[in-house]
Structure formats: structure tokens, C-alpha cells
């Protein structure tokens, strides 16, 4: 799966699952609240029933002439009777409960007003410890439902997401196939042209004419584009032979490679390289890194401008005096197919390759630029 496809799928899933989760949470909360009320009401009904029973027994006791009046204590609830001034008369509570100060949240209370006042009782307070088991079961069921719904909607969302990004995936795949086919087809003619130019220069005894120079530049540009595209295409499967590479030497070699192009644009070169800078890197990655930075610095430089290459123990800095990049574009400049300026040719893959190499080796890429003044690209080596 492509990274852009993954990103789109992830965003889709985030919105889809997020909104579904919110909706289900709300529904579950409403269901839980009403369910809890229903369960508590059921328990309250028991208290009410028991309270009515006590009331009827109190009526009988009121008329009794027995020496002892046995208070109708219930096994299910606790109860107490109070007179008209809410003073405690009698009850089954372990500690005397006042009517105006009922606080215990683990119990359900019911106050029954009595008239006439049998045995002087104007109020009957009935109480029962809440049975939390059915409420806990309800919570468990809701959590299980949420889990089940979460799994179901995640799977559904994944397939819907795949359907959602399918057109984008097809377009990207088509483009990648096109690039793959194009690069393959370009390889042979470019190699032929470059080989023949070298042969003409070596055996043809022709003095290097401007026309031949232009052909050489164009062929090298094509060759580089081909190599960049191949690099991007094979990036995941690309075998890297990490070795100790003399970066100073490599930069000098690549400067020779770009010399024709630099000459044709009249660019002055300033090389400030420390001798024998060794880096642990795959040679091809090193070439891609330097080539892309140099190519950009040449391509977007002004005619007769200056190109400065500074290599230190800590970093490589390539400074041009070109058209520069607007501040708003700097943030996204290293993304694939992103081009800040379309006045020059290219696919916008150069800095994407640089970025990939930099990330692979733990380097840090830092770009500063001013419009119409130039750009400085700095790569800080891993410490």
C-alpha cells in the first residue's frame, strides 16, 4: 500500500470510526441512564410495596390491646416511623436515622406519609441497600456491545475505506507503471547517446563544439532523470551497500560531471571542502544526494551566478544565488512532485530523493531561502 493511500485510509477511518464511536457512546449513555433508572425503579417498587405492608400492619397494631406490640420488621428493607414533628418513634435501623438528613448514596429511600397517624406515626421511612449487580451487568453488556460494534465497524470501515481510496490507488498505480515503462524505454537510447558522444570526443578528433556540448548536457540531464526515477521506483527493494565513502572525492567527481552544465550557464564555483571527509553511506545514495542538490542549485541559479559548496566535518552546505523559494512553500518543498517554481523543467522529485536519503541515514535537512536572492541547503551529518 502506498504511503499516500495509507494516509487517506487512516484519515477516512479516523473520521468514520470517530463519528461512529461518538454516536454509539451517546446512544449507549442514554441507554445506560434509562436502564439504570429502570433497575432502580424496580428496586424502589419493592420498597414501596414493603412500606405499604408495614403501614397496614401498623393499623392492626394500633387497635391491638396486647402488652407487646411487635413492630413489622421486614427482611428486605429497613424502616422507621416518625411523629408529626419528624421525631423518631421506632424502627429497625441500626443507627437512628433522621428524616431530614438522608445522605447515603448506596441506599434507596422512600418516605410514606401516613394519615391517620397509627401509633402516632405520621411518616414511615423505608430504606434498602441498592443492589448494584444488575447495574454492573448492564455496564458489562454495554461495554461488550461497544467492543463488538467497534470491531464490526472497524472491519466495515476498513473495507469502505479501501473502496474509498481505490480510485486514487488506481491513478497512482497507473502513474507508477507509466514512469516504470518510460524509464525502461529511456535507458537504452540515453546510454547510446552518451557512449557515442564520448566516442566522438575520443576518436572523432573534433574540437568540442557548442552543439556537441548541448547534446552532452541534455543527455546527462536525461540520464539523471532516468536514474532518479529508477531510484524512486526501486526505493523499497533497493539493496544498499553501506561502506566508507570519501565524500570530498565524490563531490569533486560530481562537480566534473556537472562541469559542462555549469560552464554553459556561466556559473562561478566556490568549493570549500575539507580533505578526506569519510561517511558511512551507500555510494549510489551519496551520488543521488549530491547530484540532486547540485542539479537544483544549477537549474534554479541565475545566469552567471555563483554556486558555493561547503563541506565541513559537521555538514554539507550548497548555496546558490538563484530565484529562491517563497517562505510558504518551504514547508512542503521536499514532498514528492512538489515544485516551488515551474519556470524550469523537472518532476519535483529531486528534493524528495534528498529527503529519503537524509532520513535513511539519520541526517538532518535544513533549507533556508530568500526570493530572488538564493537558497541554502544544509545537510548535517549524523553525530
Amino acid at each position: 500500500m502506498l504511503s499516500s493511500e495509507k494516509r487517506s485510509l487512516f484519515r477516512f477511518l479516523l473520521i468514520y470510526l470517530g463519528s461512529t464511536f461518538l454516536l454509539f457512546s451517546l446512544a449507549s449513555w442514554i441507554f445506560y441512564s434509562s436502564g439504570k433508572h429502570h433497575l432502580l425503579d424496580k428496586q424502589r417498587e419493592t420498597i414501596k410495596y414493603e412500606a405499604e405492608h408495614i403501614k397496614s400492619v401498623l393499623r392492626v397494631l394500633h387497635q391491638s390491646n396486647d402488652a407487646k406490640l411487635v413492630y413489622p420488621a421486614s427482611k428486605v428493607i429497613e424502616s422507621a416511623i416518625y411523629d408529626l414533628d419528624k421525631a423518631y418513634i421506632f424502627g429497625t435501623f441500626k443507627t437512628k436515622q433522621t428524616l431530614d438528613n438522608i445522605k447515603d448514596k448506596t441506599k434507596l429511600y422512600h418516605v410514606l406519609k401516613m394519615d391517620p397517624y397509627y401509633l402516632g406515626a405520621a411518616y414511615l421511612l423505608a430504606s434498602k441497600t441498592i443492589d448494584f449487580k444488575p447495574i454492573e451487568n448492564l455496564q458489562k453488556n454495554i461495554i461488550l456491545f461497544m467492543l463488538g460494534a467497534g470491531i464490526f465497524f472497524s472491519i466495515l470501515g476498513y473495507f469502505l475505506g479501501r473502496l474509498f481510496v481505490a480510485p486514487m490507488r488506481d491513478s497512482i498505480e497507473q502513474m507508477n507503471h507509466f514512469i516504470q515503462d518510460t524509464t525502461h524505454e529511456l535507458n537504452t537510447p540515453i546510454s547510446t547517446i552518451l557512449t557515442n558522444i564520448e566516442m566522438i570526443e575520443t576518436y572523432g578528433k573534433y574540437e568540442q563544439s557548442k552543439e556537441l556540448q548541448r547534446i552532452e548536457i541534455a543527455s546527462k540531464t536525461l540520464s539523471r532523470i532516468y536514474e532518479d526515477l529508477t531510484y524512486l521506483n526501486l526505493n523499497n527493494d533497493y539493496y544498499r551497500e553501506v561502506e566508507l565513502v570519501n565524500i570530498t572525492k565524490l563531490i569533486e567527481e560530481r562537480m566534473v560531471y556537472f562541469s559542462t552544465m555549469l560552464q554553459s550557464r556561466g556559473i562561478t564555483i566556490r568549493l570549500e571542502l575539507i580533505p578526506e571527509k569519510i561517511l558511512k553511506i551507500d555510494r549510489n545514495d551519496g551520488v543521488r544526494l549530491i547530484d540532486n542538490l547540485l542539479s537544483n542549485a544549477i537549474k534554479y541559479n541565475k545566469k552567471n551566478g555563483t554556486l558555493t559548496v561547503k563541506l565541513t566535518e559537521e555538514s554539507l552546505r550548497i548555496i546558490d544565488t538563484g530565484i529562491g523559494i517563497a517562505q510558504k512553500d518551504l514547508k512542503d518543498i521536499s514532498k514528492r512532485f512538489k515544485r516551488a517554481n515551474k519556470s524550469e523543467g523537472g518532476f519535483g522529485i529531486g528534493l524528495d530523493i534528498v529527503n529519503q536519503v537524509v532520513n535513511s541515514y539519520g541526517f538532518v535537512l535544513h533549507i533556508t531561502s530568500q526570493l530572488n536572492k538564493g537558497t541554502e541547503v544544509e545537510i548535517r551529518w549524523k553525530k
Partner: protein
Amino acid sequence: MEKIICFFALLCIVGHAQDVNIEDKQQLQKECLQCHVEQQIPSALIYRRYLMKYSTFERMEKAIFTYIKNPDKKRSIMPSQFFLKFPMKEKTMLDDDTLQKTIKSYLNTFDVKKKLVLPQ
């Protein structure tokens, strides 16, 4: 020494209270219950009727006091048919203080709270 004085003082107070209670009970017996028993007027029933209507000790005391001071069918706790069988009580000759003590004694004698027990 102080403990002994306190003990005797307490003994005196309790003894005095008991004497007062006995006096009040004797007063109640003489002024009320004696006649009630002779005329077979159910004192306990009357108490229950007061209790059922007034609920608290203070309210009952007030209502009984008002009735005894001015006995009247309208003020009575008993239904009108009751007076077909039993004569209307005569106006009391007791002074207010003695009457109140006697009423309290009456309420204490028939207090149902003392009878209430939890099942075994």
C-alpha cells in the same frame, strides 16, 4: 467525699422524681381512671384516638387540656354516638398545673412506644 455527696444528691433527685410520679399516678387514678373504670369508659381507646389524630405528645396534651377545661361534644375526640351511651364529662375542678401533670401521667401510662418491640 464529692463522689459520695453526688451519689446521695442523685439518689435524692431520683427518689423525688419517683415520688412525684407516684403522686401523679395517684392523682390520675383518683381524678380520672377511677370514674372511667366505674363507668366502663375505655381510657386506652380514648388515648389511641388522640394518638391517631394528634400524633405527638405535646399536641395530644394540648388537645386533652382544652377538652377537659371545657368539655363539649364538638371538642371531644370520641364520636357523637359515644355520648348516647356515656354521659358528658363535667367541667374539671382541678387547677391548670395539676391538670397538666395528670394529663402527662395519663399519656405516659398508655404510651404505645413503650410497648413496641422488634420481632425475636
